[in-house]
């Protein structure tokens, strides 16, 4: 069976520096994969390569293959807007646009030319509900998204990604700027989404990885040292480096 996202021998260079050293780490549909590892282990580089966010960095060289549903995403004919609609991203800092909550959520659809107000209303409601923030914002949809708390902003950002019906959601430390209660709301949201979406999240919060992910990949120095079921990684990892990192002996 074809993998949803198939990555083979992925190398990323920033100038001369090799940031990713031949990574093979692929994804089936559904579930949450946590990418963990010390700072500078290139897990974010890896994540950002999956929807070509690294293209924007000058001097970057990417080799190897990344196939989304069997199609090479680095092929010249790939449409970036379509790709990022299929593979959306949520960042560390909540980054709502300085518009209303409503306009934030429909941003992607408007970009794609959707004008049907009834459909837009429907998508806003569905997406905000999926992101578990609807009840909190439904009476303020036309107020600025910037007036929300950090945790609410982040969930609106998740809704903005969901609005364009992606297959894969990439998250780069989505809760590191949030307080514990907001973080646990994001975690609960991701757990609800894990059946319908393939979720890949970078996190420095090991307990978060162990709480919500089905699979955990441990990155170090640009390589994937170990990837396995999260239970296995946290109970009895195969590699000493994984064990040392997970149990706080370094990093």
């Amino acid at each position: 069976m074809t993998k949803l996202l198939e990555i083979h021998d992925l190398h990323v260079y920033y100038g001369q520096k090799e940031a990713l050293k031949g990574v093979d780490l692929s994804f089936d549909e559904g579930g949450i994969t946590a990418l963990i590892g010390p700072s500078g282990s290139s897990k974010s580089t890896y994540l950002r390569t999956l929807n070509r966010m690294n293209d924007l960095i000058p001097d970057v060289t990417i080799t190897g293959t990344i196939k989304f549903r069997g199609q090479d995403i680095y092929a010249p004919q790939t449409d970036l807007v379509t790709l990022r609609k299929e593979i959306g991203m949520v960042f560390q800092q909540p980054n709502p646009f300085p518009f209303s909550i409503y306009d934030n959520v429909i941003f992607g659809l408007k970009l794609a030319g959707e004008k049907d107000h009834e459909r837009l209303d429907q998508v806003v409601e569905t997406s905000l509900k999926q992101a578990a923030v609807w009840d909190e914002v439904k009476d303020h949809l036309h107020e600025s998204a910037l007036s929300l708390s950090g945790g609410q902003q982040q969930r609106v950002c998740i809704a903005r990604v969901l609005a364009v019906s992606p297959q894969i959601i990439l998250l780069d430390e989505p809760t590191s700027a949030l307080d514990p209660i907001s973080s646990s709301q994001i975690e609960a949201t991701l757990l609800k989404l894990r059946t319908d979406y393939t979720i890949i999240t970078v996190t420095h919060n090991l307990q978060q990885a162990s709480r919500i992910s089905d699979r955990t990949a441990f990155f170090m120095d640009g390589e994937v040292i170990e990837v396995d079921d999260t239970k296995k990684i946290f109970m009895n990892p195969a590699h000493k480096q994984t064990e040392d990192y997970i149990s706080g002996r370094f990093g």
Partner: protein
Amino acid sequence: MRRLFDEELDELDNGFTEMGILVSNVVQQSVAAFIDHDREAAQTIIDHDHDINEREIQLETKSFEIIALYQPVTSDLREVVTILKAVSDLERAGDHARNIAHATIEVKGNTRVAEIETQLAEMGHLTTDMVKQAIQAYVDKDEEAAKALVTVNDQLVDYRDQIMRDSYREITTDADVVVAAMNYNNVAADLVRIADYLTNVGEWIVYLKTGQIVELKLMK
């Protein structure tokens, strides 16, 4: 990198070893008291039984604290879990040593059977050695030594069966030995139970090393 957690874990680890030595000593003393018909030594064992129980509670409390405050994972978690489970086994082994001390007091003054007592002495020494081996296997975190404990367990079961047969035979020939013979049976059963609990400790040592929960008796 040495972690704050390592110091806490060392303290727990040492506490467990000390409790192991305490139980090992009590088993040895209870066997010696029974063989020597030493009622006073037996009473001392009974009087100090709560020392072991207190140790168990201390180590359990410490384990809960470590889990709550440090949230250990991987081998760290296994070490805490091993101790948390194995302290109960040690405490129960201690209870059986106390039973042997009670038997010592009960038998005193009754007609005895020297031949069976010789067997019980051999069985007692075997058990005492096994307890020491189990504690050493823990100190050394030695999976193979832990697995080997089950062999001694088998020998002890054979001893117990023999002692039971001999005790019943003696009872049928001389009614005066009833009290002693019943206690021989009980002591033999206590020694086997002690060995069972130490085999459990061995199983936890295997878990500590491998992450596998095993039944050593089924692995033979």
